[in-house]
């Protein structure tokens, strides 16, 4: 009776398709999100995250439809993030079949959005996505927006403490320095944020080798999110779980039925 660590593939969705980003610019079509969600679910993903990167209203409607179709056939928790600005956006996503939503920029510009969502739907639906990078703030970590391109001068530790007080249920910590490098999660950053977060912490950015996943857990992560290593077929979810299981980390085995 031990809580397992969670392995979470992240799918970037735009206009109804999953895309792979290469150096943030060259977006390559990677497949149908519903099919990929079902595949990752069958392979033992513990949750799924859709990041809606659509810039248009049409794209957002299409993403709602993707959420609906995924929720119809994949019976594991689904988090959806990207472009959420208010309580109505959250309501629409939950009704479409999302279990959790992740917010980022909108919470930075208006922190009370956190308590508005938590009061209405409960903290358990709300993931705060924090895009952080190393900088000369008090803790040495700064919150950024626009995929790490714009600084905010907000200290990441202070922000997480504030957000926990306002009622977030989980923190998704994305290292903008490590993102896409496959050089390992930012261990120093995870350690620093773990020391102040009273809610579960999902590490994101930098997963490369199997040992990288274990290192993030040692630093205090409760769950591990990765995108490119799964989409590019470098590791399968089962490989990560077998590795962690054989090194005595609690993982959920997926029984063949």
């Amino acid at each position: 009776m031990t809580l397992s660590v969670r392995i979470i593939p992240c799918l970037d969705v735009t206009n109804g398709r999953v895309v792979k980003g290469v150096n943030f610019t060259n977006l390559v079509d990677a497949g149908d999100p519903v099919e990929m969600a079902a595949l990752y679910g069958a392979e033992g993903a513990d949750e799924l995250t859709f990041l809606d990167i659509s810039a248009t209203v049409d794209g957002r409607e299409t993403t709602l439809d993707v959420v609906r179709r995924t929720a119809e056939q994949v019976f594991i928790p689904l988090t959806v993030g990207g472009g959420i600005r208010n309580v109505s956006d959250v309501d629409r996503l939950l009704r479409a079949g999302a279990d959790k939503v992740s917010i980022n920029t909108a919470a930075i510009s208006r922190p009370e959005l956190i308590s508005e969502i938590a009061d209405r739907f409960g903290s358990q639906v709300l993931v705060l996505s924090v895009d952080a990078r190393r900088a000369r703030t008090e803790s040495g970590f700064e919150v950024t927006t626009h995929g790490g391109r714009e600084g905010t001068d907000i200290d990441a530790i202070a922000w997480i403490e504030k957000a926990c007080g306002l009622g977030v249920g989980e923190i998704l910590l994305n290292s903008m320095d490590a993102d896409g490098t496959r050089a390992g999660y930012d261990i120093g950053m995870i350690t620093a944020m773990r020391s102040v977060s009273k809610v579960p912490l999902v590490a994101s950015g930098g997963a490369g080798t199997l040992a990288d996943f274990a290192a993030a857990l040692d630093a205090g992560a409760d769950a591990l999110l990765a995108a490119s290593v799964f989409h590019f077929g470098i590791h399968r979810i089962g490989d990560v779980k077998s590795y962690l299981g054989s090194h005595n980390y609690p993982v959920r085995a997926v029984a063949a039925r």
Partner: protein
Amino acid sequence: MIAILDYGSGNLRSAQRAFATSGVDVVVTSDPATALESDGLVVPGVGAFAACMQGLRSVNGEAIIRERIAKERPVLGICIGMQILFQEGSEHAENGNHKGVGVWEGEVSRLNAPILPHMGWNSVESESKSTLLKGVVGESFYFVHSYAAKKAVGKMQGWSFHGEKFLAVVEDGYVSATQFHPEKSGDAGLALIKNWVSAL
């Protein structure tokens, strides 16, 4: 026919689909007659204990649950839908505990754990023979909650652990409940749902 009681709870769509995989008709409804007459009633629940009770009362759900139990018709509570079946809950209760439906004695209180919510997959253990856990004993299910009941009630109990031991499953005649979300627990969850549906 299975009825999923709709009283403002968020994501009922995937619950409906999950129960439909057992091959039964499933409706999401707040209509009292349908909720009362269905072969099985599922009481879901998200958010805080008191808010959940308020929503339940707004559709006369408390009376429906009591009447179903009196008439020996199966009820399944899920997550907060399990918690509100207890006498009282201490979530956000500054001036005394909030009252629940009171099918079972005792209170639902905050888990004593360093990190909350208890979020993710955890296994469930049971010492006695379970209808719901048939074929899935020892498998993991998806939990997301900060409060739980910690004392045994009913005829069969399944236990889990996060900071302390708590009730994950209760079976008590026509009333059953799970603290985890079977509709979000992959194949093991669907097997548990099928076990409940088959026993109706």
